[in-house]
C-alpha cells in the first residue's frame, strides 16, 4: 500500500487543530470542571464552595435513591435495548421478504426515526393520557387501571414503551441494510442445504447479521442510558416525585432542581467512567470482529 506523507509536522497539526479545539473546549474542559466539582460542596446560591474530598461519592454509594435509580437504569437499559433490537429485527426480516410495495412499507417504518425525543414523549403522553389516552383505554379493557405519573410501574412502562418505539426505526434501517448485504447466493445455498426457515435464520442470517447487531447493541445501550433523557423528561414533566428515573435524569434533577452541584457532578463522573468502560469494551470487541468478504 502506498502511504502519503507530510514533509513537515506543521500542516497536519494545523489540520487537526479545529477538531482538537472543539473536543477540548466542549468536552475535556467541562469534564475536567465536573471532575473538580465532584470533590467540592457548592453553596446552593453560588456563594462559595468547600473541598469535601470523596464525600460526594461516598454519599452516592449509601444513598437509597441513587441505588434505586441505578437499578432502574440497569433494567430500563436492558429492556429498551432488547425490546428495540428484537422488534426491529423482526420487522426487518419481514420487510426484507416483502416484494410488492416494499418501498412504501419501508418508508412508513422509518418515519418514526424523524420524530424528536421530546415529541416522542409528548405523543407517548397523548397515548397514555389519564382521561382519554387510547392506550390507557385499551388497557382498561383488560382491567388494567393505567395511572401514568402516579403508579411507579405504569410510569416505567410508558417510558420503556415510548423509548423502544422511538429507537425501533433506526435499528430497523440498520438491520434491513444488514440483511440486504447478505449475498443472495448464500441465502439460496442455504435454501438447498436446510429446509427449515427458522433453522436458516439462526444458522446463516443471524450470524451474518452479528456485526450489525453488535454495533446496534452498543448504540442502543448508549441510547437507553443517555439519549432517552428527552422522553423521560416529557413523561415526568420535570417532577419525578416517586416515579422511576434513569441516572442521567437524576444528574439533571439533583443538579438543576436540587441545586446539589457537587453531588450531581459526582454522578456525572460515575457516568463518564461508565461510558469510558463501554467504549473500551466496544473497541476491544470490534478489533476481534471477523471480516466477512
Amino acid at each position, binding site marked *: 500500500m502506498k502511504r502519503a506523507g507530510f514533509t513537515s509536522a506543521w500542516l497536519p497539526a494545523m489540520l487537526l487543530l479545529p477538531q482538537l479545539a472543539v473536543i477540548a473546549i466542549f468536552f475535556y474542559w467541562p469534564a475536567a470542571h465536573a471532575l473538580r466539582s465532584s470533590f467540592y460542596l457548592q453553596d446552593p446560591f453560588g456563594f462559595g464552595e468547600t473541598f469535601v474530598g470523596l464525600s460526594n461519592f461516598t454519599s452516592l454509594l449509601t444513598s437509597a435513591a441513587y441505588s434505586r435509580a441505578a437499578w432502574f437504569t440497569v433494567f430500563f437499559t436492558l429492556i429498551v435495548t432488547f425490546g428495540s433490537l428484537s422488534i426491529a429485527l423482526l420487522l426487518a426480516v419481514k420487510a426484507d421478504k416483502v416484494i410488492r410495495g416494499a418501498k412504501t412499507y419501508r418508508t412508513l417504518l422509518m418515519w418514526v426515526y424523524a420524530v424528536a425525543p421530546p415529541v416522542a414523549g409528548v405523543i407517548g403522553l397523548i397515548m397514555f393520557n389519564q382521561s382519554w389516552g387510547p392506550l390507557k383505554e385499551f388497557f382498561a379493557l383488560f382491567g388494567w387501571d393505567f395511572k401514568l405519573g402516579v403508579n411507579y410501574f405504569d410510569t416505567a412502562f410508558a417510558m420503556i414503551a415510548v423509548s423502544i418505539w422511538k429507537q425501533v426505526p433506526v435499528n430497523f434501517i440498520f438491520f434491513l441494510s444488514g440483511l440486504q448485504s447478505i449475498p443472495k*447466493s*448464500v441465502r*439460496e445455498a442455504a435454501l438447498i*442445504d*436446510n429446509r427449515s426457515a427458522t433453522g436458516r435464520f439462526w444458522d446463516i442470517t443471524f450470524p*451474518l447479521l452479528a456485526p450489525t447487531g453488535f454495533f446496534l447493541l452498543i448504540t442502543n445501550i448508549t441510547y437507553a442510558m443517555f439519549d432517552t433523557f428527552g422522553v423521560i423528561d416529557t413523561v415526568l414533566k420535570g417532577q419525578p416525585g416517586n416515579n422511576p428515573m434513569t441516572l442521567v435524569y437524576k444528574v439533571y434533577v439533583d443538579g438543576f432542581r436540587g441545586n446539589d452541584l457537587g453531588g450531581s457532578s459526582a454522578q456525572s463522573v460515575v457516568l463518564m467512567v461508565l461510558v469510558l468502560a463501554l467504549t473500551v469494551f466496544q473497541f476491544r470487541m470490534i478489533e476481534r470482529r*471477523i471480516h466477512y*468478504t
Partner: protein
Amino acid sequence: MSHVTLTALRKVYANGFEAVKPASYAITPGEFVVLVGPSGCGKSTMLRMIAGLEDISDGTLEIAGRVVNTLDPADRDIAMVFQNYALYPHMTVRKNIGYGLQNRKIPKDVIAAKVAEASALLNLDDYLDRKPSQLSGGQRQRVAMGRAIVRDPALFLFDEPLSNLDAKLRNQMRIEIKALQRRLGVTSIYVTHDQVEAMTMADRIIVMNAGRIEQIGAPAEIYHTPATTFVASFMGAPPMNLLDGQIAGGAARVGDHTVMTDAPAAPGPVTVGIRPEDIVADPNGPLTLDIAIVEELGAHRLLHGTLAGQQLSVHVGKDSPATTGPFRAALKPGAVSLFDAGTGERL
C-alpha cells in the same frame, strides 16, 4: 430411461416477460449436460427452476422419477455450485461442507466421515479449519464442490462455476470438475456462457438463445451441423463464416463463386455457412479470397479477408504460407452448411 425430464417447462415473469419458452428434454443417468448461450438467454433461469430457486410457470419437472415442481429446493435431492461459490463466510470449511448433512439428521460420525472423504478427494485436508475468507478462489471453488458432493445428490447443478477464476485456473478446474463428475457418475447440468467450456466438458450441449432452445446435441454434432445460424455463430472461435448466397441451378453460389454443386435447396437466397478451418489453401482452388489481415497465433494463423465482397476468416496451419492479398483456396468436402436466409434454420 431418463433421470431428469423437462416437459414444456416455461418461465413467465410477473411483468409478462417470457424468460424461458416451453422447453422439453430428457437427461439420461450420469450424463453431463451443458446449457450454453449468451447472457440473458434464459439458461440460468432454467437452472434455477430446476433447483427450485425460481417458480415454474408452466410444464412439469421430474427428477429421479418424482415430479418436483412444487417441492422446496432442500427436498429435490439436488446440489448446486454457485458462480461466486456462496460459501457461508462465518463457518469453517468443515462446517460449510457438512452443513447440508447436519440438517438432514445424519449422525455426527457419518458426517465427519463423509466430510473427510470429500476433503481428501478435493485436496482440502489442510484447510478444513479455515474460514472461506482465508482461501484462494480455486480453494473456495473446491469447497463449494465439496459441499455438493457430500450430499450424494441425484443431480448436480452448476451455475457458471468457473467464471470468477483466472484463465489458467479455469482450464485446470474444468478438467477437475469433468474428472470428478465422471468418477462420481452423478447426472449434472452445467450452465455457462463460454462455448469452450461447453465443447470440452459436455456429453450433450443445449444451446439457448432468447429463452428458446436452439439445438440439443453432442458437442461434435453441434459444431459440425449447427441447426441455426445462431448456433453456427455462437459455437466456435472464430465463429462459422456466414455469407449471403444464392441457389441457382442446383448450385450454391456466393457472388461468382460456386461453393456447393449439389445444394439440397430450392432456388433463391440462402445463408452459406463455412467453418474457418474448412477453407484450405490450394493454388488451383476454385475460390479467390482477398486477405486483408493475418493474425499470427503461433500454432496456427487466422486470415481475415473477403470473398465476393463479404467478410470471412480462414484458419490455416502454421506451415501454410500466409500473406495479404489474393488467396486461392478450396473447400473441404461437406464443409458447407446452408441456412434459410429468412429464418436462419438449417436447410
